[in-house]
């Protein structure tokens, strides 16, 4: 099981390196452990995240791709769908089967035909378009809805801080 998982992860690493999607760099922290990756995602243009680079850690389960990885940002990301500890909460990272929320469609959820690339692209579009139906960060969600300007200021400030400026 574990060896088929790491084979699959290696294949995904290779295709992500050979043909990287725009604004995404991802790969294992060390090839000794294919189950821990680090990804860099560029902030989408035309959003307050523009110009930023956001590092995130991806932890894969031993039964990948049956179960999805967990993703956690390593810098502060002020966003309705990102927990205070950096963990990302979007439907593609949720296993199929149990759906306590009853609003996510099965097609949006994790399945073995999804991939790391699709996760990262989904996260990138999540940055641009938060889903405030299921906020992981309630305060950010409220601010995004009610005080958009303040929300964008915080995001821009975090972008600059993370770049060391």
């Amino acid at each position, binding site marked *: 099981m574990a060896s088929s998982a790491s084979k699959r992860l290696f294949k995904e690493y*290779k295709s992500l*390196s*050979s043909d*990287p999607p725009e604004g995404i*760099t991802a*790969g294992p922290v*060390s*090839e000794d452990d294919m189950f821990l990756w*680090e990804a*860099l995602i*560029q902030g989408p243009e035309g959003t307050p995240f523009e*110009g*930023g*680079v956001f*590092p995130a850690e991806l932890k894969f389960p031993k039964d990948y791709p049956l179960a999805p990885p967990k993703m956690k940002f*390593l*810098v*502060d990301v*002020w966003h309705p769908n990102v*927990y*205070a*500890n950096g*963990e990302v909460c979007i439907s593609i990272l949720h296993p199929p089967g*149990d759906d*306590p*929320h009853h609003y996510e469609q099965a097609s949006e959820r994790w399945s073995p035909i999804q991939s790391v690339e699709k996760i990262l692209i989904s996260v990138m579009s999540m940055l641009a378009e938060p889903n405030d139906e*299921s906020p*992981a960060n309630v*305060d*950010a969600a*409220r*601010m995004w809805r009610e005080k958009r300007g303040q929300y964008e200021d*915080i995001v821009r400030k*975090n*972008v*600059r*801080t*993370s*770049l*060391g*400026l």
Partner: protein
Amino acid sequence: MAEQTLNIPQILVFIVVTVLAVRWFFSKSSTDSNSSNSSTRPTRTSPRINAAQIEQIAQMFPQLERRSIAWELFRNGGNVQAVTEKVLSGRGLETPPPTFTVPTPAPRSAPTPSSHTSTPKPATKPDLIARYNLSSKISSQNQQNEDGEQKPTKQKVWSQDRNERQTILQRRREEMILAARRKMEEKDREAKA
């Protein structure tokens, strides 16, 4: 006579089967008690839940009691995801029975309320420059910038050698961060001018 010749092998078979059955029964019950001892004892004194998991959930939901979190984890076998989903779906956590004790005392006394106020705390995580050790490369990048935008040469993207792969990946990461920083600095300069 005919009855007797039939009975002796039957009795012998019966005895052998009985002996085997009794031996099997005793050996089974002894291994059973061994295995149950070894598997239940540790779970009774230290359930599979650990303090880190409780802490993780408590940080996400400061309003929850640690005891309730521990009880929920205890009941579902330490599945953090299931607990968070349960909380998020609006179903509250059950109150643990009075006999239930949290296995290990939580390292921190109380969740910090500041983590849930509407003003976010200042960045506590190291920035990208520190994280990827890029401070030395910032100055050299600026130098190159003055000579004109350096054209990125067509680089190898995949290598059969694992160390080389690692280096390529690292360089791609660094370039991405440095490019973002350069762009931001340029924007600042334009804004000032």
